[in-house]
């Protein structure tokens, strides 16, 4: 997917003015924030589980090559074929080759954010493979030629009416308006696609080194259909998703659904191990697993490594006051919210996303809810430091920061300048004691007044009091 995060600021203006989007976003909070809060209280050791989960992820990341090779060995022994992809284009090429090898003409796909990174659907269409998204949200987006705006609830930016319009246009059936009717219509449309697909494509929430399994966490059942019915299954995921043991995964699964959708457990947890055996009733004859790097290995062993702990639950964006006001599309690539504001610059280059690390108040809500304890605000700040080190800040900002620090290091000059400045601002405040505009700070005064200072600094008044 094309990275448009450079347009963040312009997108913010558009999204803040989009009434339909704002209405859709207002529902996000009660559903996900409220849902999570209710369900984490069910387990008494939630905080301890977060600590354990972070340790599990660190153990995997600290010895990533070892666990990946063990995964490859175990998966291969059970009949799967492992493919290593350095870039998104490599993934696309490999999937097209697999399709050609097995004579695939149609593919049914369950949700995969990694495939969004690669732009896989376009590549398959170009190669003559008809691919259908079967996750309800992703299916809606495919009909509307849109990108997901949330990693768990991809269609959260759309309302029921828009979806009803899309279905009426594409299904050539009378327009439905009830949610149940719309879902039924989608089921009826998708059922033959599952049954006839030559190939199923899925993501992978985790891959397990001990058993060579791919684990997927879903609610709709489409994931199970696309991974078991077609004769070919291709699972695509990032190299960082490896976890040493099944036991480890059970700890992570206590946190993932709770943090993501406020569910104790999702409707389906599928553990996909090997190809269809001689006594099995279902399962693919051919199982290909593609492990994508796409810049992840460059984060390994760096001061940003903790970002790779991420298990893609979306809690950080659900709780982010910036995301809550603008939605996911403004961020310009696959991953929005706090985790996206770190991953996008790390995977796509800091120069192409100058705003993302800065567009946060560092309020800390994201870090407080992250199930694997990624210090998201600290990582955002580290990216700002890198921008500073590499001279990527504007001259004006660098000058202001340096000038302020220089002044603050020289108390006498500081006292004099603040004394004069505060006196002037006090006078400018006028009768209502408000500044309606401030030179150089229109970002503030376009939408807010600035309460005028009283005209004397504390230092000044304190000294006067002491001497009188």
């Amino acid at each position, binding site marked *: 997917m094309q990275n448009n995060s450079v347009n963040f*600021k312009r997108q*913010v*203006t558009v999204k*803040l003015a989009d009434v339909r989007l704002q209405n859709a976003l207002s529902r996000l909070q009660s559903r996900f924030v409220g849902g999570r809060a209710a369900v984490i209280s069910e387990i008494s050791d939630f905080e301890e589980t977060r600590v354990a989960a972070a340790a599990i992820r660190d153990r995997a990341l600290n010895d990533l090559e070892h666990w990946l090779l063990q995964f490859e060995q175990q998966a291969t022994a059970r009949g799967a074929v492992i493919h290593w992809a350095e870039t998104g284009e490599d993934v696309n090429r490999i999937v097209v080759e697999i399709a050609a090898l097995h004579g695939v003409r149609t593919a049914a796909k369950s949700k995969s954010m990694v495939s969004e990174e690669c732009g896989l659907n376009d590549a398959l269409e170009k190669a003559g493979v008809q691919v259908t998204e079967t996750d309800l949200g992703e299916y809606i987006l495919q009909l509307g030629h849109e990108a997901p705006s949330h990693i768990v609830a991809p269609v959260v930016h759309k309302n029921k009416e828009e979806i009803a319009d899309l279905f009426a246009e594409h299904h050539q059936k009378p327009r439905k308006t009830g949610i149940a009717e719309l879902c039924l219509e989608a089921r009826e449309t998708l059922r033959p696609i599952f049954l006839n697909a030559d190939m199923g494509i899925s993501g992978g929430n985790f891959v397990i080194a001990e058993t060579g399994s791919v684990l997927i966490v879903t609610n709709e059942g489409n994931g199970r259909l696309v991974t078991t019915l077609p004769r070919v299954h291709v699972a695509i995921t990032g190299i960082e998703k490896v976890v040493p043991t099944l036991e480890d995964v059970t700890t992570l699964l206590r946190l993932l659904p709770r943090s993501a959708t406020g569910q104790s457990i999702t409707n389906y947890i599928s553990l996909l191990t090997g190809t269809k055996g001689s006594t099995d009733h279902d399962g693919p004859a051919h199982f290909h697993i593609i492990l994508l790097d796409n810049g992840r290995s460059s984060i390994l062993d760096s001061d940003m490594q903790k970002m790779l702990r991420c298990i893609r639950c979306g809690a950080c964006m659900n709780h982010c*006051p*910036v995301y809550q*006001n*603008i939605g996911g599309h403004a961020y310009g690539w696959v991953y929005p919210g706090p985790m996206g504001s770190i991953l996008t610059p790390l995977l796509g280059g800091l120069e192409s996303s100058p705003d993302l690390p*800065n*567009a946060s*108040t*560092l*309020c*800390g*809500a994201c*870090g*407080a809810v992250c199930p694997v304890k990624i210090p998201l605000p600290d990582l955002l*700040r580290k*990216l*700002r*430091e*890198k*921008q*500073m*080190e590499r001279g990527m*800040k504007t001259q004006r*900002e*660098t000058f202001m*920061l*340096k000038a*302020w*620090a220089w002044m*603050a*290091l020289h*108390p006498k000059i*500081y006292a004099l300048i*603040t004394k004069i*400045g*505060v006196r002037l601002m006090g006078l400018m405040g006028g009768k*209502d004691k*408000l500044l309606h505009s401030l030179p150089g*700070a*229109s*970002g*503030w005064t*376009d*939408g*807010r*007044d*600035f*309460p005028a*200072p*009283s005209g*004397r*600094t*504390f*230092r*000044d*008044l*304190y000294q006067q009091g002491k001497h009188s």
Partner: protein
Amino acid sequence: MRVGLFVTCLVDAMRPRIGFATIKLLESAGCEVVFPEQQTCCGQPGFNSGDKDSAKSLALKFIAEFEMFDYVVVPSGSCAGMIKVHYPELFQDNPSLFARFTALSQRTFELTDFLVRIVKIEKVPGSFQGSITYHDSCSGLRQLDVYKQPRQLLATMTDVTVNEMIESTTCCGFGGTFSVKYGELSTRMADNKCQHITDTHADAIVGGDLGCLLNIEGRLRRTGDLKTRVLHVAEILSGSAQEE
């Protein structure tokens, strides 16, 4: 006990009366309060903008001015968080400085946290008649666990009613330089906060961080609310808000 008062650059310039209210509270709790007059800024604007070097220089200046006190008290959760949490981090690669900053960190407190947990006051000197609603500023809340402390102090004041707003712990959109760099977004976040404040019909919105309060007041006034008072918690507890 000798308490070094770090008044913060915002209080120094914009609302000196918060500094005097803080002194009154500390003195009534039996502290000897000293205001080191060379103090300026804790370095947070630079630190949060990626200018680590400036932050380090200002941290060194700070420790030279405040290390000799039994305690350091700050009427701001975000500046206290800078000193308590981030100063030691800045000197992780220098064992002797790290140890000194860690010791300073353990003696540094946000004002309401200090009054409740260290001096354990049961009565505050001020009175205030009216209803208030409390905004929990992010750094104090999430870095220093300041949530119950101001409420506990306010509960000792018989004439104060607290009407809690919804989402009192959601960011008001200030975020330091964020408020100017992403003004439009910051204003929208302030707008949401102001709506929740207005819904409580409280006489005053009260908080523990002047940055957030200026942001909230600026948006309230721009949208025509000239009535709701915007006050620092020290102004309520000390009684200076009532005297006005």
